[in-house]
């Protein structure tokens, strides 16, 4: 091997190591940013080395350089612009879009190989298999990711879309892909067959994602991300490039694990999402929805991260805290946050609970210092400064309906929880409180609902905060 080749391979090895270490650092919020930078550094090195290879090869003509330059510039520009201007909430669909083009690029590498040789004849299985896999996976990912992005963006219907004769269509596509693949692998495929395979795979990507509901999209995107990784690894096998193999396999495997973690965190099984999507339409359990609007359900980790990175948290205890006898768990969470430097106080509504002073008796049992208890009049002006209002088993005393006349609680002074920057509500369901009316707070966009018994919820949140901050 020439010294040049050796150097390039060593550089690729370094780049691959950067990717691994970068991902490693991204496991913790504290080092995540550094990890991303390290990974990016590896990428710059690898791409630079590839340019060196191009130059060294000496066969790239001016047109080639121009084409490459134009392509890279257009792509990079579009990517940069989109990434810089996208709204926080639209990031997932953007990631899906980037994933689509990544999958597309991987497929193109294999397609180029087939086109260049005008077919797969003469190729050994060790080339034709990766080629076929690359095209299939790349194409499925391309169309599937675009649909997923569309669903999240609202361009494509977010609800599960079930085709008539969906099974038949899928069967047809499956047969078509299998046949084409077999022929290609057997070395008997030409460019038209490849085109057919690509089109079938594109169609399959659409029929695969369409019947899945919007709530499951993050998991689907993650799965497609792992697909792209695998496609890239296949592309690497096709052109015998180790950095593609390493990086692709790395993403394939880590993406797979991540997909599983995400599905677990949402209490969904991956098989359910995909097969469910194919078969009967959608069986996602959508978050409970109140009559007034959409409810956002939180996981323990989401709640934990909001709490851990808040500067000021106001806890609003209510009857549910007493019913769950979760006062000790609440105090443990509050102490943990305080140890992190978060300013924690408790907002005591005069009629929270079921007897005068109920919350005092309860919190005294858990030895919450009096100095942290704040009366309604004292704490209400503080809510706008609170990063998080953590409402635990309180309902009526936080219900903004009290401010309007004509409801069962009109005229009752309430805690201005809805003035906080964000709200986390812990309760078991969308059930009513003592007054028996709906609470508009729960459908406020800035409110996240954590549906669980207060004791369980607080224990889980404490554990999640501990994991988070180490």
């Amino acid at each position, binding site marked *: 091997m020439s010294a040049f080749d050796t150097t390039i391979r060593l550089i690729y090895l370094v780049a691959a190591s950067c990717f691994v270490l970068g991902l490693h650092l991204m496991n913790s919020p504290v080092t995540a940013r550094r990890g991303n930078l390290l990974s990016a550094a590896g990428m710059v090195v690898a791409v630079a080395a590839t340019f060196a290879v191009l130059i060294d090869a000496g066969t790239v003509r001016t047109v080639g350089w121009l084409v490459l330059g134009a392509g890279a510039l257009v792509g990079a520009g579009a990517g940069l612009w989109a990434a810089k201007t996208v709204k926080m909430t639209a990031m997932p669909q953007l990631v899906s879009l980037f994933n689509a083009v990544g999958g597309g690029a991987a497929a193109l590498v294999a397609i180029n190989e087939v086109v260049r040789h005008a077919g797969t004849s003469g190729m050994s299985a060790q080339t034709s298999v990766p080629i076929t896999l690359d095209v299939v996976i790349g194409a499925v990912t391309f169309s599937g990711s675009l649909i997923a992005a569309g669903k999240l963006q609202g361009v494509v219907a977010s609800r599960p879309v079930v085709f008539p004769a969906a099974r038949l269509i899928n069967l047809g596509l499956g047969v078509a892909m299998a046949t084409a693949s077999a022929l290609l692998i057997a070395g008997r495929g030409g460019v038209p067959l490849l085109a057919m395979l690509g089109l079938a795979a594109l169609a399959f990507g659409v029929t695969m994602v369409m019947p899945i509901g919007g709530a499951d999209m993050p998991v689907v995107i993650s799965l497609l991300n792992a697909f792209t990784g695998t496609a890239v690894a296949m592309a690497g096998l096709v052109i015998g490039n180790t950095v593609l193999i390493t990086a692709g396999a790395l993403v394939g495997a880590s993406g797979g694990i991540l997909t599983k973690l995400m599905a677990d965190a949402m209490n969904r099984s991956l098989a359910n999402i995909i097969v469910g999507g194919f078969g009967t339409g959608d069986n996602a359990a959508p978050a409970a929805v109140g009559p007034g609007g959409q409810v956002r359900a939180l996981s323990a980790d989401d709640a934990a991260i909001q709490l851990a990175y808040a500067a000021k948290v106001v806890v609003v205890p209510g009857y549910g805290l007493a019913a769950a*006898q979760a006062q000790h768990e609440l105090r443990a969470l509050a102490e943990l946050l305080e140890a992190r430097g978060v300013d924690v106080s408790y907002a005591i509504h005069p009629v929270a609970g079921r007897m005068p002073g*109920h919350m005092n*008796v309860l919190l005294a*049992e858990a030895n919450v210092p009096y100095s942290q208890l704040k009366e309604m009049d004292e704490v209400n002006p503080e809510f706008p400064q609170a990063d998080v209002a953590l409402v635990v088993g309180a309902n009526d005393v936080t219900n903004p309906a009290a401010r309007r006349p004509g409801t*069962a609680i*009109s*005229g*009752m002074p309430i805690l201005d929880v809805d003035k906080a920057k964000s709200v986390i509500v812990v309760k078991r369901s969308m059930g009513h409180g003592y007054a028996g009316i709906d609470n508009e707070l729960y459908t406020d966009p800035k409110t996240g609902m954590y549906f669980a018994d207060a004791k369980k919820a607080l224990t889980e949140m404490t554990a999640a905060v501990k994991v988070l901050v180490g």
Partner: protein
Amino acid sequence: MATLTVGVVKETAPGERRVALTPDAAGRLVAAGFSVLVESGAGAAARFLNPAYADAGAEIVSADELYARAGIVLAVKPPPVARLRRGQTVIGLLYATENPGYAGELAARGVTGVDFAGLPRTLSAAQSMDALTSQENIAGYAAAVLAAHTYEGFFPLLVTAAGTVPPARVLVLGAGVAGLQAIGTARRLGAVVTGYDVRPQAREEVASLGAAFLELGTVVSDSGTGGYAKALSDAEQHDEQDELTEHIAKHDVVITTARVRGRRPPLLVTETAIKEMRPGSVVIDLAAGELGGNVEGSVFGETIVTDNGVTVIGAGELPVTMPYAASGAYARNVTALLRHLVRDGALVIDLDDPIQAGVVIR
């Protein structure tokens, strides 16, 4: 705009130590534009002295002057009708339903009676005016402390070199406002507390204070209206008493708080039950009153020790033993109610308003 004049009377009922307005609250009313008259010595029994009222901007006057000048008379117990005059308004715990006679006299004299006991309890907006709740709350706390003081053993479990004392077993019958507060307070002191009530919601409410709920096999009841319990039928009541008897004997302290609106309090602890209690046990009857109480043989305002050494206290008016706390809370209720009744410096009677519909005696 004429200023409204309110007058705080000195309570005349025997044993009554509360006062309808504290100096603090008087100050708030003065600040809100009221003119406040205070009968000399009105707060003395609650340790609020004349100078404190004067400092808050109130005028210290004689009883005669007070009744003559005040537009609104503030009292805890119903003041003598004879002193009131036509056009005056009197605010207090008048119990018009239970005392139709008094209500009739007020009407005859042309006095508007505003009765805290008529307040709609389940109305959220009325909670700050709910004097029944604020006083019951004090009664519950005081009952638990009184029980601990009267009981001749420890409430908590203590393991010491001089042996281990098991914790006192406390049974609270009736888990309304007073019952719940008694449960919470007794638990704080370390007693093992069991609660019981006929209302089905009470089970969860008792558990929310960490106490056990006593499950009786026979008696099940729905809630009545307004958050109050329904009266039981005679047969049901009998079953309840029988079942309770065996449980009562297993407890060292029994606190009863059961009431049914507008009726004689249900009898829960029979003489038989008391006979089976251990010498040294304590029974506190918060429902004891002129109509009787929850405990057979309890006498309003008296402490009786039975032959078998059980102390029975007819503690129907415990808030008077904590006049400082009780007057403070009552005064808050009074000011909240005044704020609701008075608009633009004048008393506005509006019977379409659900709160007024409840409190204003018709």
